């Protein structure tokens, strides 16, 4: 099966239905707009500002509308005549939390039938103790504003009454063409010799290809049984991070065995953030982490005179990897990201039997087929010849 044949998806858009996509300028928002347009649906893309997302959406000749979810007045008429809304917005706390509330109010008054909210498996934190299921506790890491905001947004949906019907989707690592964080950045790091794995990348990747996520979004937008439900999602390829990086290396003509491998100890010694705020341990008490990562403290530190130059100096003087180590033997030095390290060592798989058993969701591309799309994309950008 090829990506283009997904147009015959079992999770097809309905031509007689008007869809509103909030956050249409982003990766997932733009992708769902594209799927809807290709399937002949009416779609209204809502963006926060004119930017790269607008250029992507302009391909379809749709009227783009600018709205600030934090400002309810800009949402007037956004949902007029719409049956289904997809909420794919990320941003600061105001946009994510208050913005969601504003959007729900506007959708409710416009009579929207269903509201699909794109949350994240990050709401469960980095160290769940058992496989992630829909009922796993919401324990967003205190260091992640993104996860905390998503969890707060989920609470709003959970307590929402009186329509529209809601669906909450919790994907984890969304990869595929246009995925900046999980497909472009690793590829550029591999090409430049700055890619690294932590603890051999043995953690569960819990990947979901963008096309499969779109399937799930459309499936849950229409399936009667999905009303007011939550679903965790993954491809089911059972990939570790090393598997994924290994495949990317193959596409890019690199060798996964040549990637720098960092131990937790090396991460802890050289992570720029750890160096700033003190020793981080996998089992650091939550209270201490909250103190170290508390937004006001971070903001205060960032404003402190000389702090940024101090941070940069410390990071550059103490890279995790000596300059003579790494891919091709000339790595420019690697400063690991703590969040990446936590993901590379993620201890649990996502168990997505609910959406598979109850709604019949099944990823339709093999991992190899998804790599074909990535290969084309990398070739276009000049990352692979």
């Amino acid at each position, binding site marked *: 099966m090829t990506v283009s044949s997904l147009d015959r998806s079992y999770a097809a858009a309905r031509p007689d239905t008007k869809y509103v996509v909030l956050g249409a300028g982003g990766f997932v928002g733009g992708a769902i707009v594209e799927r809807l*347009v290709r399937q002949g649906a009416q779609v209204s893309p809502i963006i926060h500002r004119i930017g790269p997302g607008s250029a992507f959406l302009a391909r379809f000749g749709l009227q783009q509308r600018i709205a600030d979810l934090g400002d309810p007045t800009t949402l007037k008429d956004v949902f007029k005549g719409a049956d289904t809304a997809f909420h794919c917005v990320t941003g600061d706390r105001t946009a994510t939390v208050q913005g969601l509330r504003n959007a729900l109010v506007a959708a409710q008054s416009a009579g929207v039938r269903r509201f699909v909210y794109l949350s994240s498996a990050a709401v469960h934190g980095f160290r769940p103790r058992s496989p992630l299921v829909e009922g796993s506790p919401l324990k967003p890491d205190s260091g992640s504003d993104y996860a905390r905001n998503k969890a707060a947004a989920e609470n709003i949906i959970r307590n929402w009454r009186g329509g529209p019907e809601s669906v909450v989707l919790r994907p984890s690592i969304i990869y595929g063409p246009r995925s900046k964080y999980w497909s472009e950045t690793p590829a550029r790091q591999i090409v430049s010799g700055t890619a690294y794995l932590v603890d051999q990348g043995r953690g569960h990747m819990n990947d979901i290809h963008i096309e499969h996520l779109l399937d799930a979004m459309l499936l849950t937008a229409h399936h009667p049984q999905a009303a007011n439900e939550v679903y965790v999602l993954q491809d089911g390829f059972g990939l570790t991070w090393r598997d994924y990086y290994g495949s990317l290396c193959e596409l890019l003509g690199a060798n996964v065995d040549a990637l720098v491998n960092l131990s937790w100890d090396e991460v802890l010694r050289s992570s720029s953030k750890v160096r700033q705020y003190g020793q981080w341990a996998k089992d650091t008490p939550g209270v201490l982490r909250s103190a170290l990562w508390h937004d006001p403290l971070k903001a205060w530190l960032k404003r402190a005179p000389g702090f940024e130059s101090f941070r940069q100096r410390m990071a550059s003087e103490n890279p995790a990897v000596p300059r003579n180590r790494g891919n091709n033997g000339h790595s420019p030095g690697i400063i690991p990201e703590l969040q990446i390290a936590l993901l590379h060592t993620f201890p649990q798989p996502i168990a997505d039997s609910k959406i598979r058993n109850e709604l019949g969701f099944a990823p339709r591309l093999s991992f190899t087929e998804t790599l074909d799309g990535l290969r084309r994309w990398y070739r276009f950008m000049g990352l692979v010849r």
Partner: protein
Amino acid sequence: MSFRVAILGCGAVANVLYCPALKDVQGELELVGAADLNGESAQSLLRDFPQAKFFCDYRQMLVELRPDAAIVALPHYFHKTASLDAMRMGIDVFCEKPMAMSSAECDEIERGISETGRVFAVNMFRRLFPSLKEIKRMIDAGALGAASAFEIMEGGPYAWPARSFSFFDRKIAGGGVLMDSGVHTLDLLQWLLGETCVVEFFDDAAADGVECNCVANLTAGNAPGSLCMSRSLTMRNIYRLEFEHGWIEWEHDDAVRFRFGVDGGKVVNAEVQCDTRWSSGGRFICALAAQLRNFARTCRREPAEDIVTAAEARKSVDTIALCYSKRRQLVI
């Protein structure tokens, strides 16, 4: 006496490029008027040029102020009409790229130039980059032999501070990334290597949309090559030209540095010695200011470096029109 110019359109390009460039050439060129439907857009320009008078209607401005020249910085859709309006009033025109949206519009402008005898120039700022002038000299001197191939990859996430969706509307912009930034690329290609022919063209537009990504397989001179452009992806942003006896390569927006090799020899990293502004973010302003000076001197029949005339500027528009006529779906 300074050369009196009025600007038609006070959107992003007027504010980001023309305003600082006009400040650079103050004394030689004087901004006497600015026109835009939206008065707010003109505010910052008018702060910098308090002597300039604001108009909502550019025709009224041209009639009332009778400037020596008009700078057409309107959305693409208006380039032809505004340029013809100005020339028919006896006013010379410096037009923002693209010259027009189609070959037919270029024909009309060329007829207008013949009828009125006015000077008409188009902003093709990269031709003024010191590195590209040097590259052009090397090629024209035949230092590396005839061109044999080329590869151009250019683009990045759209970051232009546009104030409206006009760039994304086929009726107003005439196209997408190829019409917007590709017009510069194709102008350079034909300027450096010669006439371009379109072999194949692929883009990702659907229905009435405009392309965000495209691939053109072309010939320039007799050399085959490809051009990949994007408005959303970070491309390699490299121009590479191959010749019988060597190659030349440069980063797309680098105004002073390039690399070349001769007959399989060592890579030579070249850097043109020039004002440091050419190595900074100010290089676009430098290039535009230089073009405005050349334009003003040409209008006054004074010695000046070549301007990019309609006959030159239309070549890239013609190539774009051919690309769109051969369009096939791009899947990436």
